[in-house]
């Protein structure tokens, strides 16, 4: 399988391997395994801490580790009871021992008083339909900048039309969290290619398996899971059950394997049919030899981290206009 043309630079991706696709409902995941398991980076849940929220729209993250760089995952956010939930519009580097204030964070819960407390807690990645707008609004200091987009998303789900993201993430949590069971993280997995229906929905690459393990649930449940849940709500799963024509066990095994190869071929076709992109690339930040770049194309956008032509982190997602 070839997704080289989707990565907007001349990276050497020959070291990446793909696993067998997994599918549940409308969501398909192609596991990615990177041979360069870079351990210089701290994982986002155990390594990054929400240290404080100072006024609406200002969220401070810290990397309390003595060594190890943190790459804040693109569009990470936190939810707490009785405090206004916040999310980031961009990724960032946070060195060991450093605190970083994001003054362009966005509130994802309109009309809720209180600030998030600094403590260990689970994080989410913004739902896929919000990511394009959130990325465009990076750098803009306006805590209410995403409320309209959240309202529209809530409306799509038939929920009250207001800028409260927790209406989806908390109330639908029981359904959304099943995605981490419906699709399973594999040992040593460092990334994943996501499809919704037959369309490429995102490419997520982490610098290490430990990093991706902590990113997996926020990604599959809250980012891509929300988009898949929207597709699944009208889906009628009533396909006729056609048995294999095998007349013995051996033939049955062969026919099962054949059907699986056909499905893998189908996933390959989905990838091949993804239109090639012309990306605009914009450097956001440097950390020693690391570069954080923003890429924007017609159908896809996102951010990635590279080091001398070597891809370390990527979060590229499909724009809503492409998926719908």
């Amino acid at each position, binding site marked *: 399988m070839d997704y080289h043309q989707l990565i907007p630079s001349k990276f050497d991706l020959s070291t990446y391997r793909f696993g*067998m*696709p*997994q*599918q*549940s*409902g409308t969501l398909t995941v192609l596991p990615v395994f990177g041979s360069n398991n870079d351990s210089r980076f701290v994982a986002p849940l155990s390594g990054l801490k929400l240290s404080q929220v100072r006024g609406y729209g200002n969220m401070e993250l810290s990397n309390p580790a003595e060594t190890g760089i943190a790459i804040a995952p693109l569009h990470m956010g936190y939810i707490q009871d009785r405090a206004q939930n916040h999310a980031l519009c961009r990724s960032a580097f946070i060195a060991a021992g450093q605190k970083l204030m994001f003054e362009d964070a966005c509130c994802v819960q309109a009309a809720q008083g209180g600030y998030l407390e600094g403590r260990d807690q689970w994080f989410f990645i913004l739902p896929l339909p919000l990511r394009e707008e959130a990325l465009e609004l990076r750098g803009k200091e306006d805590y209410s900048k995403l409320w309209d987009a959240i309202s529209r998303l809530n409306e799509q789900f038939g929920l009250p039309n207001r800028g409260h993201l927790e209406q989806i993430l908390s109330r639908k949590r*029981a359904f959304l*969290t*099943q995605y*981490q*069971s*419906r*699709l*399973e*993280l*594999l*040992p040593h997995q460092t990334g994943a290619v996501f499809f919704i229906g037959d369309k490429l929905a995102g490419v997520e690459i982490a610098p290490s398996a430990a990093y991706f393990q902590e990113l997996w*649930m926020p990604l599959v449940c809250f980012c891509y899971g929300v988009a898949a849940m929207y597709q699944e709500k009208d889906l009628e799963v009533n*396909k006729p*059950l*056609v*048995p*294999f*024509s*095998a*007349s*013995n*066990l051996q*033939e*049955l*095994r062969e*026919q*099962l394997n054949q*059907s*699986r190869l056909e*499905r893998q071929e189908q996933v390959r076709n989905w990838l091949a049919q993804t239109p090639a992109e012309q990306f605009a690339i914009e450097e956001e930040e440097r950390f020693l030899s690391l570069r954080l770049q923003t890429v924007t194309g017609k159908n896809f956008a996102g951010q990635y981290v590279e080091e001398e032509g070597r891809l370390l982190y990527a979060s590229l997602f499909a724009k809503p206009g492409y998926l719908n």
Partner: protein
Amino acid sequence: MDVTQPTLANFLQHLRTTNEPFILRRDAAPPQWSDEAWHRSNYDQNPELYALLAVMETIQPWQRVRILFQLLQRSRKGMSNEVRGTLERATNLLLAVLHPDQVLTVFLALRRVRANHKHTTKAILKYIFNHPQFEDMASCRRPTLMDCLEHALGKNVARACSKMLSEEATVNEAYLRRNVLRYVRNLQRVKFILPFLYQQGTHQTGNGQYQLAHRQYTEKFEQRQERPKTITATNRGDISATLVHLYRGGNSPDLQQALDGYVEEGARELPRFEGKLALVLDASASTRSYGEREYCALSQAVALQRVLEKRCANLQVQTVGGSGNPPMPEGNTDLATALLDVLESEPDVVAIATDGYENVYPGDLERVVESLPGAGIQTPVVFCHSKFTSSDDLTLRRPAQNLPQLEFWHQDDFEDVLLSLFLMANGKGASDCLREFLLEKLTKVEKEVAPWTTIN
């Protein structure tokens, strides 16, 4: 593997899941129960096994009523003394644990269908005359008791005995003894109450106490199983609780030793199977779960594996995903290939113990199962859901609707799961295994419950 086939396994499942009332209308119609034919055919096939099914705690209350009716309605002609004895014991247990009004409904239904075998008469008379709340019942249900007694004794005999006991007529001791007194434990009580039933113009003085007579027995009967209100990782049975601690990293000789002990103890009271059982054990990444449920689904499935190892003469285990002992949850869920793997060795029955999340590929298991008859495979395959609580939402966790489904979340559920699995393996000595197991269980329940109906 058609779940609608009238097999013993399906009948047992029906007894566990269907609780439609046994209806006796006020007209002269016989009782109405939609599954009458099913009960009748199971009784005909093996009356002893049929009677023993009443011992299982998990069958529905209205099904017990049906069993009691069937046992009392049908003839025992041609049965050995041993079988008659078992039927008698099952009847006595049912009479003690069923609500007295339900028992009286059964008696009235027996009258409607004119069932008056000796064992029927005996059961009715012993129940009424020796009921712990006879006075109260006589006061509250006077017309019903008269109907039941007159059916059992005959109208003239019942009235004659009543008159003799109230000394309105000349007492014929032999007559009284033959018809009434030989069933009676407390002669004085019956001497007083039987005439009372036939006294004109008496008012109801009872307060319904008789309706509680079965409570002490049902409570004992039903409380044999632990069912915590708040479910945690460690109150779902000792085996899985210990496994959860092992999975959490608390590996120690003490825990290992305790685990072996709990498995031994838990397996001891479970049925045995002499055939060949294949277990597909799902140890994929999803079986780890997370939060308070972490490792719970997998631990209970591994607990099932451990007791199967003790009770199956020939067990083959095929693990999906992770490996090790106990297997670490890892990898994706390819149930279809694992099923094909175990079918190679021609087991009598296959159990798939899983959390129900199939992702390589969704629908493969269902399609393979659908293809098995065409491929010449008739082996029964059973889908066994490993859950955290009894009320888990399985909507997205039923990847093969064409398989019979069993569920378990607590160690106490293993008895039902094992029985169902063993019964699925038709013709492999399953009914012998069930008979042996249920007879032992009956003896145990009789000791624990000590029903008043068995005291002579």
